[in-house]
């Protein structure tokens, strides 16, 4: 019974399970799960009542956002971060929960290879290990959204995709 339940649970996650058993030598269970069912250490941030998980592997550092931060270069907001200029992506503006970038809150520097973005949010909640859940394609493919997870209190939230965040079109604010 128990073994059948485990097998069903593994198969539901598109994995498989194999058993090697020899008399007197013991039994080996091998459970293989696809990468989509994986645990990611993530930084939880809040922007306009929405909570997002940012994979910690891509987070370089964070700091408070002050009114003097941000310069406009070619209609994109940039910030001087250590020795370089990094474009600011306000999570609320990008995800459509506010019309204009916030003036206070936190900046989270996300880095992927040579590219970097400073994400503007209201609050840094903390670090948590989250189980990555696939998003059904019916919800569309918003740039910067990689998957979803369920928090301890039962709320489903989105996991951001660092690669997608780098590809956000920063010049699209010209029309606004």
């Amino acid at each position, binding site marked *: 019974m128990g073994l059948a339940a485990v097998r069903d649970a593994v198969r539901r996650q598109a994995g498989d399970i194999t058993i090697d058993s020899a008399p007197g030598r013991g039994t080996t269970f091998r459970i293989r799960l696809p990468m989509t069912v994986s645990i990611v250490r993530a930084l939880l941030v809040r922007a306009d009542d929405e909570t997002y998980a940012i994979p910690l592997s891509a987070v370089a550092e964070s700091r408070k956002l002050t009114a003097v931060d941000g310069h406009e270069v070619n209609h994109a907001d940039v910030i001087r971060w250590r020795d370089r200029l990094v474009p600011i992506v306000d999570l609320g503006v990008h995800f*459509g929960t506010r019309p204009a970038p916030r003036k206070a809150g936190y900046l989270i520097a996300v880095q992927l290879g040579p590219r970097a973005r400073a994400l503007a949010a209201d609050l840094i909640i903390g670090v948590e290990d989250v189980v990555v859940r696939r998003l059904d394609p019916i919800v569309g493919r918003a740039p910067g959204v990689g998957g979803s997870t369920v928090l301890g209190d039962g709320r489903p939230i989105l996991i951001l995709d660092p690669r997608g965040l780098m590809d956000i079109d920063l010049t699209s604010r010209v029309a606004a």
Partner: protein
Amino acid sequence: MTAAPPVHDGRHRVLAFADSLQAAATRAEPVATSQWETWVTFRVGTELYGLAVSAVREIVRVRTITRVPHAPYPIRGIINLRGRVVPALDLRVRLGHAPADITPDSRILVCHVGERVIGLLVDAAHQVVRLDRQQVEAPPVDIVSEQSDYVLGVYEQGAAFVILLNAERVLLIPDGLVMNGAHHTLASASQPENQG
């Protein structure tokens, strides 16, 4: 690949005949047994709708629906169904109504279509009914457009009409509605449409 040449001997003809008998038998059977079908009925706006009970896995109360940015307009967001993240499609919007607030009566019909699990947000769940297949009327041709091909038929239940929906079709979001989504991400989703 080397296929054996077809053999036209008696044995093959008998087998082919047996196959055709079997095919005819399976074709004929459903007509006789499926006169009574079980449907789940629910309310969207002021109308009663129905979905085949085979498509609806369960009916749950609405808890947190997390918004998904830039999602197609009828997608209300994602919900947590016992640890599984399931998209929630607002059936009001899918059927051409304006979105409405969630009330204590609102329910999510958890639908299984193929391997996918999708929640349908409705205004209220009604009942599970057995309907006589023979009494299902096709919708009048002039009121069915390509956009409303999800209507299977209409069933008269007492004084009420139940509009029977095709689960698979209602879960397909037409491109027109997807495009609408872009305009509604920033603006309030409940704004009246001003079509000129």
